[in-house]
């Protein structure tokens, strides 16, 4: 064992976290007879009873299709669906609920921008700027868009320390119509300077698209302060249900965009051969939406607000700081990503010649859940020169004891693989 003293955590006290943990039923599970140590929240977070019960209550008391329903339970459902949108809008700092479009997940949100804004605004010779650390979901849609429009793809490089190399940004932005980048790397934990990047995109005449999947769940986000044009995030990573996410866009941009998916609920006047479309946000929500999921996501937002995003952020940073300190002292552990000043609670590592899958399997046998693989970041893994890493990620329900459990499990893996 290391000589490091357990940290005085920031943001949340031990008692706060104990109260929070009591809200997450899954934390009582005992896989393989071991206590569950869930360190994969960057892939998908667990859900508090408040969220599960909000959806339950919806199905038990007032489920009905929304809109056009004149009867009482349909009115309740419609109200809940739109109130949820207002809650989410408030949570990310916009007074305009109509700027929040419900999508299935961040991936669909990014595709919506690529199809609707992209197909109608890009032409041969235009440039799209991305970064080398983008998740496949913020990379492949732009590859397809580039192929279909003849636009060119460019990339902001990732420096050796895991930060974006912004030296040449002005050159890279020249001729760019759209700059898409992640707020936080899901592999390295790097926090990017969103406000600065969005401002420079704007100055260069480019629209900015922020993949906020790893930001909205774990730090205060204010779209007004960020100043970007679009941001996308997923409900399931922020205590919410699967099947729902948000695309936020500036009203003026959304208003000018053609529909993406079409059908019931997004129309104005429909004739056999032509139709007019509804205003934003309905224009982008074709078909019966994920109503229960909207209700669940609103409950998740209320939960996060009640705890406080700044406190969650501080707490996660203190856990990550402790984990980095402890892991740095384990021989054969190699850590990736920037120093604590520029990162969040996502930690990628390799341990000697143990493949990430074997490591994750052995950790699992101790109840410790980490993700192993390329984390939907194949080009970045190529750049790091590893086929896969193991990734531990922390959230408001994790504890310093769980960091210790992670370290012990890694030591067990080393013993099994006979690594000094």
């Amino acid at each position, binding site marked *: 064992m290391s000589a490091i003293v357990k940290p005085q955590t920031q943001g949340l006290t031990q008692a706060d976290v104990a109260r929070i943990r009591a809200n997450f039923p899954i934390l009582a599970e005992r896989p393989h007879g071991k206590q569950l140590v869930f360190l994969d929240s960057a892939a998908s977070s667990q859900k508090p009873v408040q969220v599960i019960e909000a959806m339950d209550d919806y199905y038990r008391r007032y489920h009905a299709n929304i*809109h*056009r329903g*004149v009867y*009482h339970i349909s*009115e309740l459902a*419609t*109200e809940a669906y739109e109130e949820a949108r207002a809650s989410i809008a408030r949570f990310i700092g916009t007074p305009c609920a109509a700027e929040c479009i419900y999508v299935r997940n961040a991936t669909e949100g990014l595709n919506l921008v690529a199809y609707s804004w992209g197909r109608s605004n890009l032409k041969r010779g235009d440039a799209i700027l991305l970064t080398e650390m983008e998740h496949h979901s913020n990379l492949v849609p732009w590859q397809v868009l580039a192929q279909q429009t003849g636009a060119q793809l460019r990339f902001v490089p990732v420096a050796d320390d895991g930060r974006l190399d912004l030296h040449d940004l002005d050159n890279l932005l020249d001729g760019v119509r759209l700059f898409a980048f992640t707020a936080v790397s899901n592999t390295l934990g790097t926090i990017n300077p969103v406000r600065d990047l969005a401002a420079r995109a704007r100055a260069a005449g480019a629209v900015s698209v922020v993949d906020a999947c790893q930001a909205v769940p774990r730090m205060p986000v204010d779209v007004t302060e960020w100043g970007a044009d679009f941001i996308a995030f997923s409900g399931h990573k922020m205590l919410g249900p699967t099947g729902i996410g948000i695309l936020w866009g500036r009203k003026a941009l959304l208003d000018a965009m053609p529909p993406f998916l079409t059908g019931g609920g997004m129309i*104005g*006047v429909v004739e056999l051969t032509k139709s007019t479309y509804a205003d934003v946000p309905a224009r982008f929500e074709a078909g019966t939406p994920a109503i229960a999921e909207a209700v669940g996501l609103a409950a998740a937002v209320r939960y996060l607000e009640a705890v406080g995003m700044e406190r969650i952020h501080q707490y996660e940073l203190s856990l990550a700081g402790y984990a980095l300190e402890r892991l740095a002292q384990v021989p054969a552990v190699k850590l990736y990503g920037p120093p604590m000043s520029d990162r969040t609670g996502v930690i990628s590592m390799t341990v000697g010649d143990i493949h990430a899958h074997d490591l994750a399997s052995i950790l699992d046998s101790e109840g410790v859940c980490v993700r192993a693989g390329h984390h939907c970041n194949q080009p970045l893994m190529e750049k790091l020169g590893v086929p896969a890493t193991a990734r531990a990620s922390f959230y408001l329900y994790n504890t310093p004891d769980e960091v210790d459990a992670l370290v012990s499990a890694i030591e067990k893996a080393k013993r099994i693989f006979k690594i000094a």
Partner: protein
Amino acid sequence: MTDNTFTGMDELYRDFILDHYRNPRNAGTLDNPDATFEDLNPLCGDKIRMDLKIDDGVVTDVKFKGRGCAISQASASLLTEQIKGKSLAEINKLGKEDVLANVGINISAARLKCALLGLKVLKSALALKYVEEPDL
């Protein structure tokens, strides 16, 4: 999500509402209106068009045409009666409460949209006119 706006249906569909629905006042259109607007509630298909004659800041004539439920058509009809001879300043002050006062009853959120469609069309017609002739 409480049920405090629910009221008896007999109270909602009183004789004068049915009368305004079946015999709308000021029905039709105006030739050369000073202000006009048509709007649709795309979710339910209710539609109202309103034409206005305005003389020296006063509404001297109004006609409306529409289709939809008794609530939307009767409130539009009642509204046309209310505004004839009124100044634009007075009309500007009309709000949700006035429409509800006309209908004589508090109604649920879903039907509120129906009741307010006429007022929305009226305000849009005037807004359009203001924009086009800012010195009005």
